[in-house]
């Protein structure tokens, strides 16, 4: 089943590429069909998922490289940590196809890359072998690079290159770290390594810890490794921003939870103060920078830096509550920021500007878009009854004891985020009608309505009924928390 989830988008991409040039426009239908099917598959998996047992489910494996003194396997499986992320991936991939409905530059290549991106990210979330994980981690770069550099705007080649270089530099260190661990333990199997964490390695584990951690921190991203993110977001097409903020950043947090903590719990304890400091600083600094943005898309991008700081804060607490909070924050931030980027894209499509100074009174012309933007904004600042609240609260509860100072800073970040969200809403949506925008139309097309509706349902749904998410996440977090606590 999971292998099917991994391969369906690739199959869709191949079919899209094979389309004759005359029927190129149909690529989007194919992409929607395949991402929709994959989302359905993810939902079925999530429903069937057995919440009574810990550990990996739906595992499929075969030996891939063997006999050379080391073994590399193909293993896929989900647990409570990855299952929600797979649903999120399915959901956002579908949304990103919907918001790309009007792409008409080389559409078949565009949708093929988008589908391949889904497969690559799915591979990262599903892989249970370090080398396999690394392969998918690298594979994700190709579609991202081409999507930004070919279909982006502004300084797109520069931004795509920056994204590529940051990620490559990080992942080179990660590969070295993986190899050191694998050589020491004689296996790359994540499940086996989790059971018996590596002890003796040729390089001190503290160095390995940082080599791997750096790759994940770049991806998350946190200060000072975040500078690629605003550029990539600003110049990427809407759908790619949705994928980037919604699921790609989660690869960083996921990697920390899946690989760094269980495999190197002692080092995680040694450096938890450092991580908490980075996290607290990242939250506040990201929020302050967000306040100063004049470009709507850059604003949302910087708010991501701030919000992903919560994930690292939850991780650095190293307790079951904090870790659950981090996992929840990854899911909810994916939905919320995904929706924010969808809204920014819709506003830009109509007004052809992202300058906040030029936008005002949009609520008069586009009440639906305005309303959904406000919903997304409120969720982003952590309003109760929306998913963001549950996640942030859990993070703070988990971390207040371990890192009071960093937590206080992060709580202050919430205040700042209320500031920039409400101020932005006030500036662009309210105010007098202007003549410039008198002929704007509201969101009327079915693909726009659907894209907004599914995300709003997801955000409010998990906000008022968090158990649908927390029960599963707890199942995945508990074994990791046990390992980490045992090491202290």
């Amino acid at each position, binding site marked *: 089943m999971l292998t099917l989830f991994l391969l369906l988008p690739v199959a869709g991409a191949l079919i899209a590429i094979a389309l004759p040039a005359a029927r190129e426009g149909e690529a989007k239908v194919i992409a929607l069909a395949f991402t929709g099917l994959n989302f359905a598959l993810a939902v079925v998996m999530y429903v069937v998922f057995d919440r009574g047992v810990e550990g990996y489910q739906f595992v499929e494996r075969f030996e*891939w*490289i*063997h*006999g*050379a*003194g*080391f073994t590399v396997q193909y293993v896929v499986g989900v647990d409570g940590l990855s299952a929600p992320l797979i649903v999120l991936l399915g959901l956002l991939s579908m949304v990103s196809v919907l918001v790309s409905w009007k792409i008409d530059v080389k559409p078949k290549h565009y949708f093929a890359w988008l589908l391949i991106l889904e497969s690559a990210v799915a591979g990262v979330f599903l892989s249970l072998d370090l*080398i396999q994980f*690394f*392969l998918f981690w*690298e594979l994700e770069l190709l579609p991202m690079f081409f999507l930004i550099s070919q279909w982006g705007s502004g300084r797109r*080649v520069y931004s795509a*290159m920056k994204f590529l270089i940051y990620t*490559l530099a990080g992942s*080179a260190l990660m*590969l*070295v770290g993986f*190899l050191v661990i694998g*050589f*020491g333990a*004689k296996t790359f199997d994540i499940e086996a390594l989790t059971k018996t964490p590596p002890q003796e390695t*040729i*390089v001190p584990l503290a160095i390995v810890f940082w080599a791997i951690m750096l790759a994940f921190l770049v991806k998350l991203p946190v200060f000072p490794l975040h500078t690629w993110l605003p550029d990539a977001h600003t110049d990427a097409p809407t759908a790619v921003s949705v994928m980037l903020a919604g699921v790609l950043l989660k690869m960083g947090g996921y990697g920390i939870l899946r690989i760094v903590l269980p495999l190197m719990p002692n080092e995680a304890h040694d450096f938890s103060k450092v991580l908490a400091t980075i996290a607290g600083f990242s939250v506040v600094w990201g929020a302050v920078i967000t306040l100063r943005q004049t470009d709507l898309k850059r604003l949302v991008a910087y708010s991501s830096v701030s919000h992903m700081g919560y994930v690292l804060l939850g991780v650095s607490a190293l307790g079951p509550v904090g870790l659950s909070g981090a996992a929840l924050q990854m899911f909810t931030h994916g939905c919320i920021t995904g929706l924010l980027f969808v809204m920014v894209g819709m506003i830009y499509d109509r007004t052809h500007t992202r300058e906040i100074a030029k936008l005002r009174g949009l609520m008069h012309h586009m009440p639906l878009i305005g309303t959904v933007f406000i919903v997304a904004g409120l969720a982003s600042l952590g309003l109760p009854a929306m998913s963001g609240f549950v996640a942030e609260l859990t993070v703070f509860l988990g971390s207040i004891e371990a890192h009071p100072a960093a937590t206080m800073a992060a709580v202050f970040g919430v205040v700042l985020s209320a500031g920039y969200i409400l101020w932005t809403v006030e500036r662009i949506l309210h105010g007098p009608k202007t003549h410039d925008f008198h002929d704007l139309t509201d969101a009327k097309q079915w693909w726009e309505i659907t894209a907004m509706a599914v995300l709003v349902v997801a955000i409010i749904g998990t906000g008022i009924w968090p158990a649908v998410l927390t029960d599963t996440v707890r199942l995945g977090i508990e074994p990791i928390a046990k390992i980490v606590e045992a090491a202290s």
Partner: protein
Amino acid sequence: MTFFDQVHAVGPALALYAGAGAVLSADLLQGRRASIWGLAVVAGVVSLGWTLAQLIVGVEAGALGGAVRVDAFSIYLAAIIGGVVLAVTLAAREWASTLEQAAEFYALLLVSAGSMVLLAQAEDLITLFVALETTSIAQFILVGITRNDRSSEAGLKYLLTGAVAAAILLYGFAFLFGMAGTTSLEGIAVWVASAPEAQRLPLMLAFVFVAVGIGFKMALVPSHAWAPDVYEGSPALVATFLSVASKAAGFAVAMRLFYTALGGGDTFISQDWGKMFAVLAALSMIVGNTGALLQTNAKRLLGYSSIAQAGNIAVGLAAVAAGSTAGPSGVLFFLGAYAVTNVGAFVVVSLVADRLGSEQIADYAGLVKRSPAAAIVLSLCLVSLTGIPPTAGFVAKVYVFNAAVQSGERWLLALVAFAVLNTAISAFYYLRWVRTMILDEPRDATPFRASGGVQFVLAVSAVGVLLFGLDPSPLIQAAQDAAAALL
């Protein structure tokens, strides 16, 4: 052993020699009208086919009165050498047709390759030396075959350093013969097994000379200095042959000498020569990688890269001495992976030199827009040389480094740490080249196409790089069988 068994044993080499003879006779009798290219291809195919036949039938025997030995090890190397010579011949058709001495080119190529096959089979110091010299002399002429200044200079350089290396090697052989009283590798092994501790110093002298002498073929420090100059000066396809087949043959000889004759990891001196190879490997890596950083000429860069790669492979030799049995199979796997990778890279360089008239890396700008196939294959090969998955180069590096780590020896761990650091340096110049091809704008965007033979070689190379990266198990098995035959 019947006459036919003897012929069968040396068949692959014989086919190449016969091909050389046929090429020369055809040229003599028919001149320009003769299809010498076709004859050379047939010779390569027959040699490769014969090697495969040996593999299937499973020959394991000494032949020619104990001078050569056919086993899984020699078959593995004969397959690499046969494959490379066939690839070079296939790719050379267009370029060689412009050559005044086309027949001599093919004939020398085949003679050199035939001697390399014999080299991999040699069981005796005399056979070894004769085969080595036959290979080298043919190569000296090949390097200078275009007869322009650069090519001649490279040929002379190669000849002079080669002669010095051969003298040093022979000196080492003389020590071995003087102590053991026999030229047979098995005989030397018997003597080493019971040699008194007092013989340690002369033995060490002997293997240092041997390593320096044979290091010339492997492009291993301290016999490496010729590689950048000679690669730059010689025709790209000759450089292909030197960098892949010659290196493979060099390592084959080293393995025969150090495993068979010096008793592998079981003797009292194995720690000594293991440490020697560790030092040579470390030096080769750093010299090759730092040298390559500043290069602007594609062939010079690949020359330095070839030195660095020799260092990587030598990590496997060092690992052996520490009692790690994965070492020899790692070396053999690396040679196979390196062959498909480097042939691809050099053939693209040859193609670009032919079409653009330039070997400057700056002129590769935007190659992906001019010849997507060439740019993609070269990128793939460079990624493989760096050692990034999912390519053959990645599995090869992990294989060899893992072998060294598993021994648990501290100095080997340090060597691997150093090798990993060097891989990071190498990523810089390999990936910079990839970047130039894909991202930079071409000065002149006219597309160009490769000839059929070149396209075929590039396709095979790309498939090999990916196949050995994604499903390396068959090649791993073959390398292990070959290593088992050696030990």
